[in-house]
């Protein structure tokens, strides 16, 4: 055991940061600053420490005051050896638990700190800026994003950057729990509220009081539960199922959905008043296909994670395989790319992931030059699409030959389609030589160059 001594509170305070003591055993009465001053200073400078005060028989009131301020214990003089040893031993055990707890909280905070979330793309940088702006306030946040875009990760980032970070983050998936159970989970119930309610249950709102509650897939909540949620947000109090009294709660709500709440509102499946209550701040998470520049870092991150878990020495991905990942549409977003890399890490024989190690659906989805195009439910005009492609190719290429090559067709076919849709030829086209003539010219040019040799 390392033992340090100090003859005054000032000398002890000077030692706090360097020695980071588990236990501080201090006399209550000290010259100038006393044991209570030391206790207050220790709560900031050495939060893992437990303070035991020693006090003369006549100053019990002061000792009680010290206990209220967070002292671990107090000992009355004259001191007995056994009492001192026992108190210090108990304080040391408590302090170890406190240290572990503080370290785990710090780990969580680091894990969900923004520099540790991958997102160099401008759209993700916008999201991070928003997170930092909204985190300090208790305002409700609504996160929109497709499945697998990291809605819970962003909700946690808000929580761990907020003043509520020291309390546990609570989350519930509203779509994963059948409705009568969801209400019990959120609001709790009293003993005897229904058959099977053999004891009182504390709901998530009460558990998360002083902290953050993440309601994932909030659009899947039924109207009756939506009404209860709205009441809770408005009144800042809940009523347990089968209970009569209201219980005040202080919960920050972060809700998320991958559905269009405005459409659901129009269809009468989502309460309008709840929508406006939730939609104080909105964060839009981009799908992975709109931030493909983040793919290489995500891939490296997931390779490192899963290679370590699988005990394999995988150090990267071949360019051809990375190119396949760039072309794929990723309907399951970051979650899907993680699962693809996890599989590839298991399959790979060498130190680099190859195309063959990638899941078949990803390899097959991306023939060279294929478009990531999904037919909308409302259908599409094929002719309008064809016309648009022809016009885009012309704009990009500048002349018919190159535009035809962009669409993988001959110049003749391209011209035929331009005429079919009455699309005007580019102005520069007059000057453009015929493709056949161009090729002939090139051939004769190389022939001329070859002649002197």
């Amino acid at each position, binding site marked *: *055991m390392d033992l340090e001594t*100090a003859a005054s509170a000032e000398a002890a305070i000077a030692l706090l940061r360097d020695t980071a003591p588990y236990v501080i055993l201090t006399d209550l009465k000290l010259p100038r600053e006393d044991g209570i001053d030391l206790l207050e200073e220790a709560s900031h400078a050495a939060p893992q420490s437990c303070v035991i005060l020693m006090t003369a028989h006549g100053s019990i009131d002061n000792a009680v005051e010290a206990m209220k301020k967070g002292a671990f214990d107090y000992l009355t003089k004259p001191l007995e050896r056994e009492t*001192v*040893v026992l108190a210090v031993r108990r304080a040391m055990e408590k302090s170890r638990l406190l240290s572990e707890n503080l370290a785990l909280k710090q780990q969580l905070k680091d894990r969900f700190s923004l520099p540790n979330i991958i997102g160099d793309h401008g759209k993700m940088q916008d999201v991070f800026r928003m997170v930092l702006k909204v985190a300090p306030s208790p305002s409700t946040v609504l996160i929109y994003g497709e499945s697998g875009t990291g809605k819970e990760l962003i909700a946690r980032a808000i929580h761990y950057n907020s003043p509520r970070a020291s309390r546990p983050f609570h989350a519930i998936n509203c779509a994963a729990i059948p409705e009568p159970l969801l209400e019990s989970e959120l609001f709790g119930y009293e003993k005897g509220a229904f058959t099977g309610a053999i004891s009182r249950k504390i709901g998530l709102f009460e558990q998360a009081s002083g902290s953050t509650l993440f309601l994932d897939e909030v659009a899947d909540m039924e109207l009756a539960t939506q009404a209860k949620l709205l009441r809770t947000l408005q009144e800042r109090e809940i009523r347990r199922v089968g209970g009569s009294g209201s219980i005040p709660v202080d919960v920050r709500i972060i809700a998320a959905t991958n559905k269009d709440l405005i459409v659901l509102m129009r269809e009468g499946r989502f309460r309008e008043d709840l929508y406006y209550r939730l939609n104080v701040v909105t964060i839009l998470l981009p799908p992975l296909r709109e931030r493909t520049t983040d793919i290489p870092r995500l891939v490296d991150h997931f390779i490192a994670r899963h290679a370590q878990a699988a005990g394999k020495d995988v150090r990267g991905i071949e360019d051809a395989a990375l190119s396949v990942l760039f072309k794929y549409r990723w309907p399951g977003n970051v979650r899907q790319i993680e699962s693809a890399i996890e599989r590839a890490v298991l399959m790979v024989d060498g130190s680099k992931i190859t195309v063959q190690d990638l899941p078949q659906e990803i390899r097959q989805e991306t023939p060279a030059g294929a478009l990531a195009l999904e037919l909308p439910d409302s259908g599409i005009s094929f002719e309008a699409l064809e016309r648009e492609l022809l016009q885009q190719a012309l704009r990009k290429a500048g002349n018919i030959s190159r535009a035809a090559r962009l669409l993988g067709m001959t110049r003749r076919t391209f011209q035929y389609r331009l005429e079919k849709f009455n699309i005007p030829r580019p102005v520069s086209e007059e000057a453009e030589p015929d493709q056949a003539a161009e090729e002939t010219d090139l051939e004769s040019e190389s022939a001329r160059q070859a002649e002197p040799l």
Partner: protein
Amino acid sequence: MSVTSQSESGRVLVVDDEIRQLEMLKAILER
């Protein structure tokens, strides 16, 4: 009875302006 078990070690800071008492506590905790 000792303060720490064999596998444990910890830092204790003892604060007292009476040198005699400080020495006594030191002796108790170091035993």
